[in-house]
């Protein structure tokens, strides 16, 4: 069995920077990512994608290649196309990290520390018809653009709220790709709520970038603001989008509908590893509780980047560095011979987080969009509707685990990534409790589906616990 100082999960800006700093500090490191190459979400394809080596997707994107090169130069062992399915803390304080590596293979890697840098995912925007082929997320379309240089053809509608929606519109605009309509669903009170945070925003890098963004997107696209409801229409695939604003309801033809509702941390891995998570009311998401270097209440488990709370690529990179210094300090008693570098990263982190609060408030989704009407499917895997969930709550299921047992919401292959937050929002609406008091449904390993053969192969590597006998053929007596 391999035994290392550090396993890093995720090769986005956070994981890559953590790997570079940890390797510089002399640690033995392995980095695992289920993608094909370094980059993560923002820098997807920056090594070999359709726009690698160009500035066509903006200078932020181009920075990815530099970081990827630094990572390649660090000599850190990398496992791409491999998924971490479980992190367990052993009695001696080290970690067993189970990694699905191939079709029917998995390995257990032992390490003294783990940095989870699993990034963000888009917040689900459950609308009527969102399961129809042709309805995708804005992030999915952006990934197709970055990785494959492919864009929508025929009438395309963007709907929702959040910077990424406008970023995508701007990236399309710059490439000459026409978007028919952008339906902005942000709530009317958002500006008022964002205003107190405007000072921070004006001194941030977003201010300049943000305005440029909007300008470009606006020029190329029909933008309808204050949209109160959106639904996707079609039989076996999307044919049209209906939206409502005040008393007006319109249906427009569409081949592609791209939804976006902001991004939220991916917490399945860290939650299942036992780290404490807490509700962030401003960001409407659960986030792990961390100290200044990203360490959780599970000693030796660090979290860096968007999986710890949305901060964007620059913050992610800074957090990756800080987590690496935290691990160095834990294992070596010092974070290297010069803590000036650590202080620099800390300053960069503070600067890059400026303006976030303004954006969070400005792009906050509407309450009515977080809690869709009864007929809308919430759990895409098990096809459970909002009405099913409300009914369960009215019958006494006061939290997501009991709702799950009643309705099967969250039991499919996505393991509640698509329905978890909506389920909590609906329970909150029904009970009047805060999502923080309700909690998320319990997340468990394996955090992604793997074959029975892969699970079986986890034993070959690891015979440490002879006392626990695997299942007998007998059922309960």
């Amino acid at each position, binding site marked *: 069995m391999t035994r290392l100082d550090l396993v890093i999960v995720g090769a986005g800006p956070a994981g890559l920077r953590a790997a570079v700093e940890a390797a510089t500090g002399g640690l033995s490191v392995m980095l695992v990512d*289920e*993608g*094909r190459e370094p980059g993560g*979400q923002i820098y997807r394809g920056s090594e*070999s994608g*359709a*726009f690698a080596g160009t500035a066509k997707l903006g200078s932020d994107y181009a920075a990815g290649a530099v970081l990827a090169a630094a990572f390649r130069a660090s000599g850190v062992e990398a496992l791409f196309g491999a998924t971490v399915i479980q992190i367990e803390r052993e009695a001696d304080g080290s970690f067993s990290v189970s990694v699905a590596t191939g*079709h029917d293979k998995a390995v257990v890697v032992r390490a003294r520390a783990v940095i989870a840098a699993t990034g963000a*995912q*888009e917040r689900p925007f459950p609308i009527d018809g*969102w*399961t*129809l*082929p*042709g*309805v*995708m*997320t804005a*992030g*999915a*379309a*952006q*990934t*197709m*653009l970055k*990785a*494959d*240089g*492919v*864009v*929508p*053809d*025929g009438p395309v509608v963007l709907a929702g709220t959040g910077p990424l929606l406008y970023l995508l519109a701007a990236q399309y605009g710059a*490439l000459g*790709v026409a978007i028919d309509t952008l339906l902005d669903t942000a709530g009317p009170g958002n500006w008022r709520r964002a205003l107190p945070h405007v000072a921070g925003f004006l001194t941030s890098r977003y201010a300049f970038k943000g305005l440029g963004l909007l300008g470009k997107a606006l020029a190329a696209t029909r933008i309808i603001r204050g949209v109160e409801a959106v639904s996707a229409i079609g039989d*076996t*695939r999307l044919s049209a989008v209906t939206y409502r604003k005040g008393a007006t309801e319109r249906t427009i033809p569409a*081949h*592609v509908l791209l939804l976006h509702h902001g991004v939220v941390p*991916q917490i399945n891995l860290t939650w299942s590893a036992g780290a404490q998570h807490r509700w962030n009311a401003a960001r409407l998401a659960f986030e792990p509780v961390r100290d200044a270097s990203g360490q959780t209440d599970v000693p030796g488990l660090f979290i860096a980047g968007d999986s710890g709370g949305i901060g964007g690529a620059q913050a992610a990179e800074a957090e990756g560095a800080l987590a690496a210094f935290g691990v160095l300090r834990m294992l070596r008693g010092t974070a290297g011979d010069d803590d000036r570098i650590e202080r620099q990263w800390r300053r960069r982190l503070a600067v890059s987080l400026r303006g976030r609060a303004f954006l969070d408030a400005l792009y906050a989704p509407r309450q009515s969009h977080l809690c869709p009407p009864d007929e809308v499917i919430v759990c*895409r*895997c*098990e*096809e459970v509707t909002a009405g099913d969930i409300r009914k369960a709550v009215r019958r006494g299921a006061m939290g997501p685990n009991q709702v799950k047992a009643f309705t099967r919401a969250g039991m*499919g*292959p*996505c393991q509640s*990534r*698509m329905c978890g937050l909506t389920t909590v929002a609906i329970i909150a609406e029904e009970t009047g409790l805060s999502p923080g008091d309700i909690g998320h449904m319990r997340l468990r390993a394996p955090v*992604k*589906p793997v074959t029975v053969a892969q699970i079986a192969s986890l034993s070959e590597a690891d015979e440490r616990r002879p006392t626990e006998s695997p299942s007998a053929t007998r059922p309960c007596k």
Partner: protein
Amino acid sequence: MFRRLVEPAGHVTVTIDGRPFSVAAGETLSTALLLAGFAGLRRSARLGRERGPFCGMGVCFDCLVTIDGAANRQACLVRVRDGMAVQTGTRLPALADTVPE
């Protein structure tokens, strides 16, 4: 529904539901399927409704197809390979079909 903005460096051939298609070498399988005109890739387990790629990043599990005999694989996380055989339209995979010899 989608089009290519950048001409690919090369092509490979994959079989989709028994028919050969020429696709960009190294392309994401879900992208290749969408470009080939396959919007729905599978049917949902409970209600049998058409589903296609949604999140594009491996978290929604709606892009599931059978790849070289292995059922329910995420097309958005796989790149095409020459000779790859893809089956769409599955609702409940039959296990016997998925056992490699």
